[in-house]
């Protein structure tokens, strides 16, 4: 019977090609715009480390007090060097690392090649195990090298490709700024997006970092942070790098791995006690305020999903809604025009249920057509998305099997939802009335 209904539907749709096309296009465009913006939204709101995100935490310490917030300054989303060092010394988490972004120049051995800039991070050995960083060759430096401020470096697979044509470069040296570093590991194309450990400095969607080096080595060499420095009200600092790092400027990111809820609670207590201790020492003059957010909460707090992406998603959902209302109207018109035909079928013994199935089958065909159009337009949309979003973000949106499936499903389901009322109306047609007017 369903095959017969599909044939009937096809015939009916062909009888009025313009109206059919209008419905298919409306559904297709509505679904495509939603899917394109959803693809972008999905990419930027993804969980970059799902297997561990609930157990990784970024602490904050209120170093400027409530008065700073009354003046419009936010609580710093990084720690001061002093606080980061204190937390690292206490080692209260299973793993912990301080991090800051650095920008260096790489001077190639050959005079003929131009020097080029490399970006990366100064961090502790725990960084790699905490964040599940995969290695192509070698591995992380070990904690003793942290303590010795060793001149070692972990490089990206891209940089390894560029300098060593992809061969195992562990044990070789590279010259960054004015010092040599021994390569201990090559990262295997690791670039979580959003880059959760650096969203307080960047938009989180940049190219992968080229290098990682021990935190204390970077401090010894007085490397400046390539990220934000927030120095609310800290005018009285001593000049020079040493004065800077011992000031109340916040610029060091900090992450801790806390394997279960007990550890988390203990760490909160520890941070509160730390702030209370600072109160006793006369550094703070307010109630300890030490938020501890896990990775997902941190991304939310840092507003990683750009406003533009969220507005666009809502806008296209609104757009899809209008498209659906439009489809309801057109379908209603189309179905009710065939009241006479329905009357005849009903008089010949078709039940309401059968009428219902018949028209729903016709609607489903519109839905499938809309889905196909939707997939085509979503593809076009993914190509044109660079016009609307920043390049870093636009290139994250790509069409994959999942998205195609979602587009088809979304088109079919929304068309069936739109068809619900027109179909119900069609099934309520009174056969007697229709026959009488003839």
């Amino acid at each position, binding site marked *: 019977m369903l095959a017969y209904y599909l044939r009937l539907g096809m015939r009916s749709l062909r009888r009025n090609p313009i*109206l059919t096309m*209008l419905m298919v296009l*409306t559904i297709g*465009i509505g679904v495509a*715009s939603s899917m394109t913006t959803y693809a972008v939204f999905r990419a930027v709101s993804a969980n970059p480390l799902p297997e561990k995100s609930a157990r990784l935490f970024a602490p904050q310490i209120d170093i400027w007090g409530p*008065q*700073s917030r009354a*003046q419009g300054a936010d609580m710093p989303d990084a720690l001061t060097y002093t606080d980061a060092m204190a937390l690292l010394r206490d080692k209260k988490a299973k793993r912990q690392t301080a991090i800051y972004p650095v*920008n260096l*120049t790489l*001077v190639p051995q050959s*005079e003929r090649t*131009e*020097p*080029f*800039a490399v970006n990366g991070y100064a961090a502790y050995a725990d960084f790699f195990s905490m964040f599940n960083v995969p290695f192509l060759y070698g591995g992380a430096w070990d904690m003793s090298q942290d303590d010795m401020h060793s001149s070692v470096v972990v490089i990206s697979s891209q940089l390894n490709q560029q300098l060593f044509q992809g061969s195992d470069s562990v044990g070789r040296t590279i010259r960054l*700024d*004015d010092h040599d570093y021994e390569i201990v590991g090559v990262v295997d194309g690791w670039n979580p997006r959003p880059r959760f450990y650096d969203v307080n400095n960047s938009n989180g969607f940049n190219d992968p970092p080229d290098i990682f080096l021990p935190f204390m080595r970077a401090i010894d060499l*007085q490397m*400046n942070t390539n990220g934000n420095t927030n120095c*609310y*009200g800290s*005018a*009285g600092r001593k*000049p*020079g*790098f040493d004065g*800077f790092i011992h000031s109340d400027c916040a610029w060091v990111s900090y992450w801790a791995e806390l394997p279960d809820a007990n550890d988390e609670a203990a760490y909160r207590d520890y941070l509160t006690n730390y702030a209370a201790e600072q109160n006793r020492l006369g550094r703070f003059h307010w109630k300890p305020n030490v938020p501890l957010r896990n990775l997902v909460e941190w991304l939310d707090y840092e507003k990683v999903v*750009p*406003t*533009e992406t*969220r*507005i*666009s998603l809502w*806008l*296209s959902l*609104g*757009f899809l*809604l*209008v498209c659906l*209302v*439009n489809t*309801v*109207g*057109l379908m*209603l*018109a*189309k179905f*009710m*025009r065939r009241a*006479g035909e329905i009357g005849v079928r009903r008089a010949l013994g078709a039940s309401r249920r059968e009428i219902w199935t018949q028209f729903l089958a016709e609607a489903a065909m519109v839905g499938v057509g809309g889905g196909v159009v939707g997939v085509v337009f979503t593809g076009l949309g993914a190509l044109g998305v660079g*016009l*609307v*979003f*920043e*390049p870093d973000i636009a290139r994250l949106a790509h069409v994959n099997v999942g998205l195609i499936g979602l587009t088809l499903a979304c088109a079919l389901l929304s068309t069936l939802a739109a068809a619900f*009322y027109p179909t119900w*109306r069609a099934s309520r047609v009174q056969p007697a009335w229709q026959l009488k*007017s*003839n």
Partner: protein
Amino acid sequence: MQIRPILATLRHHKAGTLLIAMQIALTLAIVCNAMFIIHQRLARMSKPSGVDESNLLVVRNEWAGKPAPAQIGSLMAADLDTLRKVPGVTNVYATNTYPFSNTGLANGIGHSPDKRNYVSVTAVYFANENTLATLGLKLVEGRNFTTNEINDLGDHDKIAPDVIIVTRELAHRLYPDGSALGKTAYISDKPSIIIGIVDRLQIPWVDSSMAQWADCSTLLPFRQRVDTTHYVVRARPEQLADVAARVRATLYAAHHLRVIRPKDGVQTFAQVRAAAYESDRGIAILMGVISTILLAITAAGIVGLASFWVGQRRKQIGVRRALGATRHDILSYFLTENLLIGIAGVVLGGVLAIGLNLWLMKQFEIGRLAPGYVLTGVAMLLLLGQGAVFAPALRASRVPPVEATRSV
């Protein structure tokens, strides 16, 4: 035109009427908020920076191999000389940042050495005696820096200038009751004398969160000797592209150990501005495209449903025509019917538009929707409705009176 019979008819087509009204309402709500957002973004994008943008380009230079500060000083001086000699270059200076760069330094400025107690936040631009001429800033009061006022500044040195030049807006905030010229302001814990006031100079950022002090910039007489420097180059208008193409190779020829990124190391100010407003432009385009398609779909929906109604009522139209109604009567019947539905739609849509705006204000820090946008949207949708219904209505008016005598 009698409205009562139209209303009676519409009561028989509740669903269709409601659907069209709803579609008009939703379209109005979305389109007028979209127009508002587009207009806001365009207004932001067209805000003048105070800088003579069309003749400028920026070079971002990083010294490779970490030279000592003294060496950076002489390298920079040599670079400025080299750049000055490039044909087509009229002026150049070195600085930490420039408008639209999206990086830089912001400080509190006020009347007290206590940094927690400031009048306004200000962007800090390091400048020398050539800055005003290079950027094309208009000095409205006072004087420019002199060469011997420009001091060296190392990394993390204390920034405590003897003299500063501020923008007119900042001068007004510091001294609302009179001229700020010759008076002092604290940008560090030492007082600085305001020796000049320029008309306008935008801060390096275009974020809406900083819009409140977007015109509060301060020029400080420093030669900053750090790893990364920006050279701002002014060229003769017709030679800007030429200079931009040559400048990188020229600098490398003069000194090899440096990084000027091939991708974005040299940018004209037009490129810098475009990059700064990328997301604003993107949102404006998206809103524009969606609004246009939305209006088209609404119009198509009206055409579709009106055609259906005309088809359904051929017999009644025939009867009316046979009873003496003119073609014009039939035409205006359908136009009025559409107008009534349209009015219901826009009334509902106006409410929805304001509701949507309130929600957007809460979610996205968007301003309050001005009534002008709603009124424009209302006019647009009513006209759109009339335009869309015109063709089906015209077809209805052509139904011959003889239709009344035909059975289906």
